[in-house]
């Protein structure tokens, strides 16, 4: 069984958290924090298995993780899972993300955490591995996206337009417009 799946970046900011056993929110944050501390201090050339997370699991549980660029993908699993198998599963997960987002990067996970959840749900269900075949996973995701699109139809057009405008990020652009340094300009004015 998989007890939890966590994705966080190099600074420990959570990008995805999925717990298959109930923990209260503050406990979840503690677990993420602890896991990050455990994982982040390890070099990239050491093994990907870790024992001894005290908050989650116990002796039967292991942390299995992979580090991709800025993100850590951590699975907390018990002894019924094969260590190397889970490593492969992480790989499948990341590759699927890569296919769905076209060259996935941390930003995709930040802004589309819901989609990441939907993808993950096609791989793992209730802590058990549901599917490992990537083509099958991708078809299912595609199908569901189609369903959403159909529903949206024309009705969603205005909303899409607005979101397109929003995505232009006008406030930021306004911020980014460089004005001459006013106080300095005033100082420069010589009477």
């Amino acid at each position: 069984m998989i007890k939890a799946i966590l994705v966080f970046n190099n600074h420990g900011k959570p990008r995805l958290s999925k717990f298959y056993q109930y923990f209260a929110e503050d406990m979840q944050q503690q677990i993420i924090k602890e896991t990050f501390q455990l994982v982040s201090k390890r070099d990239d050339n050491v093994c990907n298995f870790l024992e001894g997370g005290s908050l989650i699991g116990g002796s039967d549980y292991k942390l299995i993780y992979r580090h991709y660029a800025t993100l850590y993908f951590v699975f907390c699993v018990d002894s019924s899972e094969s260590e190397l198998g889970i490593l492969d599963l992480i790989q499948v997960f990341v590759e699927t993300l890569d296919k769905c987002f076209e060259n996935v990067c941390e930003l995709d996970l930040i802004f589309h955490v819901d989609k990441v959840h939907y993808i993950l749900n096609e791989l793992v269900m209730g802590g058990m591995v549901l599917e490992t075949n990537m083509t099958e996973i991708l078809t299912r995701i595609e199908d569901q996206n189609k369903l959403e699109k159909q529903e949206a139809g024309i009705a969603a057009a205005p909303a899409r337009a607005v979101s397109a405008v929003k995505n232009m990020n006008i406030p930021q652009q306004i911020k980014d417009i460089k004005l001459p340094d006013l106080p300095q300009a005033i100082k420069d004015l010589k009477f």
Partner: protein
Amino acid sequence: MALKKVKGNIERMFDKNLTDLVRGIRNNKENEAKYISECMEGIKQELRQDNLSVKSNAIAKLTYLQMLGYDVSWAGFNIIEVMSSSKFTLKRIGYLAASQSFHCDSELLMLTTNMIRKELNSQNQYESGLALTSLSCYISTDLARDLSNDILTLLSSTKPYIRKKAVLMMYKVFLKYPEALRPAFPRLKEKLEDPDPGVQSAAVNVVCELARKNPKNYLSLAPVFFKLMTTSTNNWMLIKIIKLFGALTPLEPRLGKKLIEPLTNLIHSTSAMSLLYECINTVIAVLISISSGMPNHAASIQLCVQKLRILIEDSDQNLKYLGLLAMSKILKTHPKSVQAHKDLILQCMEDKDESIRLRALDLLYGMVSKKNLMEIVKKLMVHMDKAEGTVYRDELLSKIILICSQNNYQFITNFEWYITVLVELAQMEFGSKQGHVIGAQLMDVCIRVQAIRSFAVTEMAQVLEIYTSTTQFTIMQEVLYAAAWLCGEFVSELKKPEQTLEAMLKYKFVPQHIESVFLQNILKIFAHIVRTYEIDNRYDDIIRVCESLTDKLNDSVKSGELEVQERASTSLIVIGIVQEEITARKSSSSNNIMETDSSMESKPINEQSYLISDELLSLFSGELNPVAPKAQKKVPIPDGLDLDAWINEPIEESDTDSEPEMTENLFVKSERRSIVYQEPTEEEMKKSREVRKYEQQNNPHYLKGVGNGAAEEAVENIPVTELNLNVPLKVLRQKRSDKYLNVNADKKSSKKKKSKKKKHKSESSSDGMFDKEPAIEVRRDMELPEGATLSDSDSDHAAKDDPHRALDIDLHLPIYDYTQKPDNEVKEPKAKKEKEKKHTRKKVEKENLTEQTEKLKRKNRENETENKEKSSKKKSEKLKGKKPKQPKESNLLELDEEIGGVKKEKKEKSKDKKEKVKVKSKKSSSDYEEAVGISTPSKEFQ
């Protein structure tokens, strides 16, 4: 109305969506909390609107905030609203939020039952899939009970996507509602042979999870799994199956024998490392379960070890790690084959990866022998010096102690060396708990090994002397505890008790429990010294010692710690009495001397009716023996002792006159406390200290200014006299243990050492280092209360709240029931399930020959009474004769048939088995009864 809707839509466009929220949070890094609380307000606003899309937008944002650690349980009802939307897009958001924030105890779940049921039965496979996925995260007992039938129906859905999810979902249902397991099991079994590989894999997954906790109930599935294993190419599923076999083999050694061959083939053929690794693991499990009687047994072990060596030598750290992990499993049963790879394991000890070093450490345990123990420990000590981080150091320390102390110090040939190592270890830096470990080990060695006491005590005395006379010397304080205790307990071994006493009196600030041990043992040494002096009539010396002790103890009496105070005052009284008595005797003896001639010098002692030191020593007489673990638990409670009853009615505490009460308690408890001493925790100590300080301040009867500080000062003011050490200080800084290694290197050059050894072990007089069995006696016996035996029977079992306990159901019992009419007690719904069972049972039957069923039925009728007994949970009762064995045996025959297909051998085998069964039936165990499988009775095959 339409207008309103349009208006709503337009407003909605300008609502913040999830992307805006995320962006906003990123833009407000400085005051994130404030920004989010603003957003929360906005979300609450949105949730108050009627429009479901507005709500779903709000819920999507909440899901994100939940990930950041915000509690969103207040929005549970809104989440359910969104879940109930007819649009897939919105529904998805709702179900996601539910799976992230609901848990099985929330009362809101009651509201979802019908909605989820509707969803499960939806025409759209993605809708029901969505519901299943979400439900798997928060299913409660109620939901499991109410929905189990719906989910069961989905098992036969036409869409593999749904079947797959439903199969996995069933496991969650079983966990919450174990009653569902029995009726659902036949269906689940069918799914093992589902045409869709995904469904098959899911079913394997579920059965593996079930069987992991209660393997014996799933033995009968072995043939099915075996078939899958030999035919499937899905590595993921193969891994699961092989893992499952690993769990089953310990219960059925014959299964193991069948497995060896195909597994070996897989090991040779597969290119997937994950599969290879699991195969090796299961082969190891098989080999452990059938430790003997296999012709190519050694070959299999050899193969495993070889493959593991390849893994360990691989550059991939993951494989290295797993290789070591599997090696440690082999180590338990076949240490010899692992020992051959000692070089490799020692090499791994040098690895830069800490996890790998830790695994290698585990293996070292099995690598040691009398010959190489010193060498290995020496290596570990070098690591200890280099190691950074206390975790690894602590692990090293505990491993050193473990390998040295294993099997009652089986591998130690030179205990002097071991004591020296421990003392060296004590001077290193560790985590807080390690001092205790070393201290305990020192005490344990000395108690068990009589021959080493004199050396150890000398060593400890030296430690104490150096510790109290210099300031640079660092040592773990817990070790001082052991040192003080050993010096006191084995005071007769002390060479210069006066000197040690002097040293102990000068102890600096130590934690309370250590100080109390010091006080107690000062008294023991004192008793010993008084004894020697008294025999020689050196009364003046006794009085001198008494005075110096009284000085020190007077300081300790003022200690803030109750325990210290108490022991000090007890000691003071004892010393006072001795001093009084001695003074009296001194005067009388001096009179005697005056009166009598000098030739009568020795007479006074004889004249005295008794020696005062005899009295004193009797306080500490009696040998301490090792006590067996759990011995305390096994002391029977005497009749008529009610531990819960009050001895005295509790007195209501009053704040005003606490002082006298406290002192009263002190004296009442003192005797008992000094025997059973419990180490106070840091907190307790702090608390008691504070309480006491407070009391001292407020109590007008207390002399202020003679408090703690003054006492400490007084300690420091004691003049430090230089000690004449026969061993220079710097020696302790060196690796003294190394000299024992050198001794090993060339024995001839160690005459000096030998003579020293002889001195210590005068009785044993063994001069060989490890060639001969050392004559040092290690006490292995342990004290237990009368009548109690050392067993693990009362060990704590797995956690009681483990849901798998409820799933320990014998799945094959109902199969017999089908010929019986449902009992009167069986209620209606059960009868319904019974029907289902019948149905599925028939399918199973088709696989068997029809004529067999006739006989089976007849047999079942015969067995009916017995079965009833079984179902009434008298499984453990031994059934006479072969009959109950037969189903089991035949089950294995079935296995034989499917696997081997060698018909000639079969008969012979079954004969063999018959014989085996005969033998076994005599000592039949309850396990076998429970493991009765489905079955075609063996008569059919004969």
